[in-house]
């Protein structure tokens, strides 16, 4: 067991070194003006959507639950402003490719809040069940990417023996610096969140993993864990997609999550630093998830920044308070440039798992027609899951789905390394995604 370990070498298969373009690294987290209205989708997580518990014309307070969980894998949604419910309607979800129900609230600007009652502030007196229930009630999901309900992750089956909690501060996506800033500014609150997680899981230790391109975050986290006997720090050589759950577990602990399996099967639970912070706010301060830090960046936005933003804020307002967009704007991406989703309009809201909003210019993006595969094998070399992206791509182009199913498309994590290095600029991720979809349908 180490206190701080600087790793070197190649720690997981494949991977690439994209230009980091972290223009907002080192910029402080800025507050944002109150949004005029918020659009809060009832699903901002992986699982079943929440059920609306407010009606049109209801007055709601900031922090009030407006949608309740509708099953085991579901989490509630809370209002991020005070005001009147204007509409409950179907909207285009920014991260799911389908329309979903959302609550639209007109902000009255008063910021009248519910009373946040930190009933569980002395968390060590409470059981796993009670705390997990509370975390669910506070609407917390994984803030790193997929938005998996945190309560589910913190409640693995009784047979699982979780000994390590991995705290993911890798932030390996280019452009994004939200976690970096959070670690610099809120290290002690993150550590407090980690202690809550350790208590819930009854795990032996936690390791905070940070890539070595974030020296300030490393310094502040190192400081914050100094007094914590069972929390240590892993400094990893920068390499994308190290922040992928399976990659991070391999890099730090050398454990391999079985294909189709989950981290707890190898004794690990992974939580993002921002999630640890949110858990702390929920348990110690009684605050539900209503806001988050996002990176606003790209060469087509005038004032790139790390911003504290209320959930439900429209991208158009985000663009506005970041100085507006320039003529060069070609693409808006929610998330990082490797895995984020391109947005068709700025009417989409910031949701729980929005780590960043990128306003990209034509020069920053790849918009060329693709060519035939020349079998150079670069995609094979960089695939962190050791797949054969070239074969999957060619088979899917020819719609040979049965054949494609033999090349493990379901193991693909869609990190995009293959398409990033492809000299023929083939849409490999899109093709594999299609294969995954069709294979899943076939299986049913």
């Amino acid at each position, binding site marked *: 067991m180490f206190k701080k370990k600087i790793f070197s070498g190649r720690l997981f298969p494949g991977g*690439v070194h*994209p*230009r980091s373009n972290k223009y907002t690294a080192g910029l402080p987290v800025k507050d944002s003006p109150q949004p005029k209205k918020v659009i809060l989708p009832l699903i901002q997580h992986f699982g079943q959507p929440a059920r609306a518990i407010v009606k049109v014309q209801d007055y709601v307070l900031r922090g009030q639950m407006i949608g309740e969980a509708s099953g085991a894998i579901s989490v509630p949604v809370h209002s991020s402003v005070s005001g009147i419910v204007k509409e409950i309607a179907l909207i285009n979800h920014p991260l799911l490719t389908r329309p979903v129900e959302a609550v639209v609230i007109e902000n009255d600007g008063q910021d009248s809040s519910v009373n946040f009652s930190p009933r569980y502030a002395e968390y060590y007196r409470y059981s796993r069940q009670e705390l997990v229930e509370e975390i669910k009630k506070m609407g917390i999901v994984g803030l790193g990417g997929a938005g998996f309900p945190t309560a589910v992750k913190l409640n693995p089956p009784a047979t699982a023996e979780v000994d390590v909690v991995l705290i993911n501060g890798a932030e390996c996506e280019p452009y994004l610096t939200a976690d970096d800033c959070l670690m610099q500014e809120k290290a002690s609150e993150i550590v407090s969140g980690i202690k809550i997680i350790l208590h819930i899981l009854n795990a032996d230790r936690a390791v905070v993993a940070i890539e070595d391109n974030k020296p300030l975050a490393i310094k502040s986290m190192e400081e914050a864990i100094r007094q914590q006997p069972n929390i240590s720090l892993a400094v990893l050589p920068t390499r994308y997609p190290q922040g992928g759950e*399976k990659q991070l577990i*391999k890099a730090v602990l050398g454990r*391999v*999550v*079985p*294909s189709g*399996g989950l981290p707890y099967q190898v004794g690990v639970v992974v939580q993002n630093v921002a999630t640890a912070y949110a858990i702390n706010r929920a348990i110690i301060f009684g605050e539900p998830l209503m806001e988050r830090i996002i990176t606003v960046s790209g060469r087509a936005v005038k004032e790139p920044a790390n911003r504290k933003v209320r959930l439900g804020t429209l991208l158009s307002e985000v663009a506005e308070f970041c100085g507006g967009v320039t003529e060069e*704007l*070609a*693409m*808006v*991406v929610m998330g990082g*440039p*490797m*895995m*984020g*989703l*391109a*947005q*068709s*309009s*700025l009417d989409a809201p910031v949701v729980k798992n929005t780590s960043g909003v*990128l306003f*990209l210019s034509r020069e*920053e*993006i*790849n*918009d*060329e027609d693709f*060519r*035939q*595969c*020349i*079998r*150079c*094998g670069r995609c*094979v*070399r960089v695939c*962190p*899951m*050791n*797949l*054969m992206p*070239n*074969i999957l791509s060619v088979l899917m182009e020819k719609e040979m789905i049965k054949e494609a199913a033999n*090349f*493990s498309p379901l*193991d693909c994590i*869609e990190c*995009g390394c293959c*398409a*990033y*290095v492809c*000299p*023929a*600029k083939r849409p490999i*991720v899109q093709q594999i995604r299609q294969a995954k979809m069709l294979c899943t349908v076939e299986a049913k």
Partner: protein
Amino acid sequence: MNTLLVKSSPHIHSGSSISEVMGDVLLALLPASGAAIYFYGYYAGAIILVAVLSAVLTEYLWQKIVRRENTIGDLSALVSGLLLALTLPPRISLFLVFLGAVFTILFGKCIFGGLGYNPFNPALVGRAFLQISWPRAMGSWFLPQAGQLTITSATTTATPLMIDKGEAVGQLPDLGNMFLGNRAGSLGETAALALLLGGLYLLIRRQITLTIPLSYIFTVALVSWLFGKNPLFHILAGGLLLGAIFMATDPVTSPVTEKGRLVFGVGCGILTVLIRLKGGFPEGVCFSILIMNALVPLIDRMTLKKVFGK
């Protein structure tokens, strides 16, 4: 506001392209091409020019005729033309060069659907075609005239491999001259130093990996040594370096995994020595690579990587 572009991730790209890959191969072939002209004069330049122009023109016209997108900009036809030229004897008629280049592009590449779909290395398909159809012309060798740009002598001679095999009488060049390229052979195969420089460039630019050249060359050395031959001689003789560095590493026609590439290189090496010492031709690089090209789908299938977590 302009319409926003919506497409699948990833949204950024490394900037690599097919023309960059091919352009690097062209650059890497510059030293060998220069050596060809240095040793065999302007006529070598003419062979290169005819091969390259015919190759590019053939691809252009084919794509016009079958109404396919014009792809000569990807530089692959240029590469195939140049590679073909470098495998030809130094005084071959320009008409045969033209025929070889047309065959290279049409039957090496176009009929399979273009770059990426061709199972065999196009330049080697062209060379094999010439060798089988015009064996005399493809077997006339001359001593290099270093630095003399116009042809003066016309005495034919034998290649080191022919002498070694006992098919011809003559004096074997010493290894130093073979390393520099001062020996009879195809235009671009003789100057080992120039070929190694090109290979180094491709390695640094990460256009090739070491696996195929190393395993190919090492296997030739080992197997020729087992047959009681001088391994160093067999590395420097014939077209081994040109083949191992530039032909066997052709991405389209070689395996995609490093394990597969190892199998491929070893196979090429064994076949090359067997043809050289036991076969009907003095040199076996061209046919070895073509035979191994045919096995690539099988090799690929048998050397899949193990999926992470499986």
